């Protein structure tokens, strides 16, 4: 842990809070998010973009009676914070009351997760990132393919202080390397890793994985769209969890009647168990939310049955329960969100998963997915960077990418095998820990030219 940075963030939060209270507001909450992040990007087997950023945002929510106003700034000086408080209070004085405003959350017991911080990542230099890029590129060179990708490292501090006594502060690190390899005939492959400790990411191994797949996808042929059994690699499973989290596991989605989630409702096979756990060291830990509430482990799906949803302070009050620590920065019309989803592993090796396909497709990843019918969780998207026909349990060869239009709930119900290995990957907003899966009945609805 880097307590100095968290302490600095807390001090700024406390100063903003003091300015807010001097405005005569009823309640106030200051959220401080500070980051030093950098990203080295490569394409055509050379570094072409290379960036770094020092940034801070102070988000102030104030309440006058039941009127809520929010303002944000990047200024940390006294005048900037005074103006911030004035702006937020001015908004709160003119908006209408929220009749069911339940107040800002109170303190919860927050225990830091030391595994969420790593010194090597915090100190990662441009030279360190360039070395990793060169390792990926070298692996591609060895395989005769071209390399594309990025390596990001980030040091993030967050602090929340509110007028109910919340005082939360922490610092964490994250890193992510992604790479796409492209063969001379246009075949592509993908590999990715995310970690708290950037030095544990084996850039050369990821480069080899993507390069081998790019080679294996050479001379892909078209297959007819239709229903296939599929093995989804971990990179593709990320999208299932992300989309279901977005569409259904939020308490606000349930309260508004737009979610599929319902306690006790079966939505998956017995093999599907999904939780959200910001404390799981296998992921990228985040131990309190943007309202300063300790994150709870929430069972979302247990052996195929809906068991829970995630709450922030306001949605929790509406249901008469406690926040699970899944609030996002105010104002937040989207509701709480599971940022640390973890899917339980199964018993199958990668080879077992593929061997179980009589005739089906092995999918590396999905691309540009979007809900077509949110409540039924019907989603469309494309396959990308490695799709293969499997017959008799053996990979026959590469196929051109396909479009699918598929209910992700039906996909959970059709899950017949789950991989025993899991990967830590970044998702839409947070991080996920996922295995590969085999699913019976995946509907492909179109093809493309590559």
């Amino acid at each position: 842990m880097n307590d100095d940075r968290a302490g600095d963030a807390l001090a700024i939060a406390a100063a903003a809070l003091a300015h807010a209270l001097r405005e005569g507001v009823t309640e106030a909450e200051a959220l401080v998010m500070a980051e030093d992040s950098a990203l080295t990007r490569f394409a055509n087997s050379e570094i072409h973009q290379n960036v770094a950023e020092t940034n801070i945002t102070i988000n102030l929510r104030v309440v006058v009676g039941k009127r809520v106003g929010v303002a944000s700034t990047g200024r940390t000086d006294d005048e900037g914070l005074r103006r911030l408080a004035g702006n937020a209070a001015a908004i709160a004085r003119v908006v209408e009351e929220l009749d069911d405003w339940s107040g800002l959350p109170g303190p919860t017991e927050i225990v830091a997760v030391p595994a969420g911080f790593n010194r090597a990542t915090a100190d990662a230099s441009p030279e360190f990132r360039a070395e990793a890029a060169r390792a990926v590129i070298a692996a591609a060179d060895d395989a005769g393919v071209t390399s594309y990708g990025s390596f990001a490292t980030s040091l993030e501090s967050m602090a929340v202080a509110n007028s109910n006594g919340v005082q939360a502060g922490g610092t964490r690190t994250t890193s992510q390397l992604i790479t796409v390899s492209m063969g001379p005939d246009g075949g592509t492959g993908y590999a990715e890793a995310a970690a708290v400790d950037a030095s544990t990411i084996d850039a050369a191994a990821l480069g080899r994985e993507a390069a081998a797949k790019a080679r294996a996808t050479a001379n892909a042929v078209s297959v007819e769209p239709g229903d296939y059994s599929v093995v989804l690699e971990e990179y593709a499973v990320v999208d299932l969890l992300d989309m279901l989290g977005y569409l259904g596991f939020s308490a606000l989605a349930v309260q508004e009647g737009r979610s599929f989630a319902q306690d006790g409702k079966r939505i998956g096979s017995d093999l599907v168990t999904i939780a959200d756990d910001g404390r799981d060291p296998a992921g990228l830990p985040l131990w309190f939310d943007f309202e300063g509430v300790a994150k709870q482990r929430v069972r979302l799906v247990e052996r195929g049955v809906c068991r829970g949803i995630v709450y922030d302070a306001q949605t929790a009050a509406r249901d008469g329960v406690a926040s699970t620590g899944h609030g996002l920065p105010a104002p937040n019309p989207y509701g709480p969100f599971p940022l640390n989803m973890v899917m339980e592993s199964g018993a199958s090796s990668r080879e077992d998963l593929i061997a179980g396909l009589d005739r089906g497709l092995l999918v590396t990843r999905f691309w540009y997915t979007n809900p077509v019918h949110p409540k039924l969780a019907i989603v469309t998207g494309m396959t990308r960077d490695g799709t293969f026909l499997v017959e008799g349990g053996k990979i026959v060869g590469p196929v051109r990418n396909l479009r699918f239009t598929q209910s992700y709930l039906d996909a959970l119900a059709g899950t017949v095998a789950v991989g025993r290995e899991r990967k830590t990957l970044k998702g839409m907003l947070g991080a996920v820990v996922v295995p590969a899966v085999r699913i019976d009945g995946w509907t492909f609805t179109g093809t493309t030219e590559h």
Partner: protein
Amino acid sequence: MRNLTDRALDTATARGAGYADVRVVRRLDESIAIKTGRVEGVASGESEGFGVRVLVDGAWGFASSHVMTDAEADRIAGEAVRIARASATALRHQTRLDDRPPAHGTYETPLGEDPFTVPLETKIADLLAADRAAAGIKGIAFTESIYAAQREWKTFAATDGSLTEQVITHVGAGIEANAVDGDEHQRRSYPDSGGGWGAGGYEVIRGLRLAERAEPLAEEAVALLTAPQCPSGRFTIVLDPSQLYLQVHESCGHPTELDRVFGTEASYAGTSFLTTDKLDDGFRYGSDLVDIVADATAPGGMGTFGWDDEGVAAQSVSLVRNGIFVGYLSSRETAPRIGRQSGGAMRADGWNRIPLIRMTNINLLPKPGMSLDQIVADTDDGLYLASNRSWSIDDRRLNFQFATEVAYEIKGGKKGRLLKNPTYTGITYEFWRSCDAVGDESSYVMLGTPNCGKGEPGQTGHVGHAVPGARFRNVQVGVGKW
């Protein structure tokens, strides 16, 4: 401001940069979110900082900070040079920029009514009136209405002597009515899902007349719950501007980005089927009726400015002329590789991001001859699709699939009954080649999106699209199992 930009450029040069530019950006935001007649969120925000971009021996480096001091300018310029030297350890081609005259001057979005001086109470009351009108319709489960305004003060300076100052203001607003019954969830929105956006002042918002549109919109959302499912098959479709603009965005805007063509977005956003050989060969992108331009001078568009973020003056570039692919969105680095000058499409999402090739205003030009109503009247049997619901396209921008909020059956030249859950899919160039009618000026409207994603780390772009309605033949409609 000049002190800080001079300081950053001087330090970058002293540390070894052959070229450097610096952007200082202050951004002011205001937003209102209303749900089902309640003001759920009102927020204002400001962000200020600077970013320094350098070329050292042909390698790029960029660093940025929110701390606006001379000392930080030195640190950030030095860091940018260090990063560029790290880039040079994995460099195979030295970057060269095209020649362009140094940029000088100022630009400001023309405003009728400054959105930041309109009282907040007025803006909330206007939005509430529209939202409550929609929420009051029987059968509506929830409504969502949004208003947002953004202003950027942007100073650009470069070691070639360029210095420009711009003030750019964008506004947007919209309403959305949702009806839910069991597993069925139907939505209607106006002017489009995500709102209507443009460059200008509060007069843009007043011009939307949200409150007048709210009740019929909500009634249609409720009616969709019991409407027949849109059929599957090959149909003639007429696209309303509220859907056609996104079709242009996804299937013409993105594939004409020259950085994608050269692979520099391959790890994330993907590449493009519009490879440079197709430019040389006069590739037929669409029918003769299809004329598409990237016009950074178009009034009211969110892609309108004085200079792009590397100091190239705003201009209009033809992308597709009479159906033939003729040009790209380009930059000072990419344009020389096809023997052209930059088309001025480099745009950055704030002070802490590098400029990337982004859409400006990608406009499908209207054609004299038929209004949109006349196109419908000229259609014996087809579907009229309006308001985007979802979008997806492959990583080379060929296979797309869109869903719209609503379809209206067209029979005998008349719009008839509602159909729910419409989707359509196709291959980009086959689709545009099937275009056999483009509406005239009467339906030509400037729309746009404030959330175009690209780049790593992620950037969100504000882009404009002026489009009329248009008709397409033999399109696959109704995809998937319902």
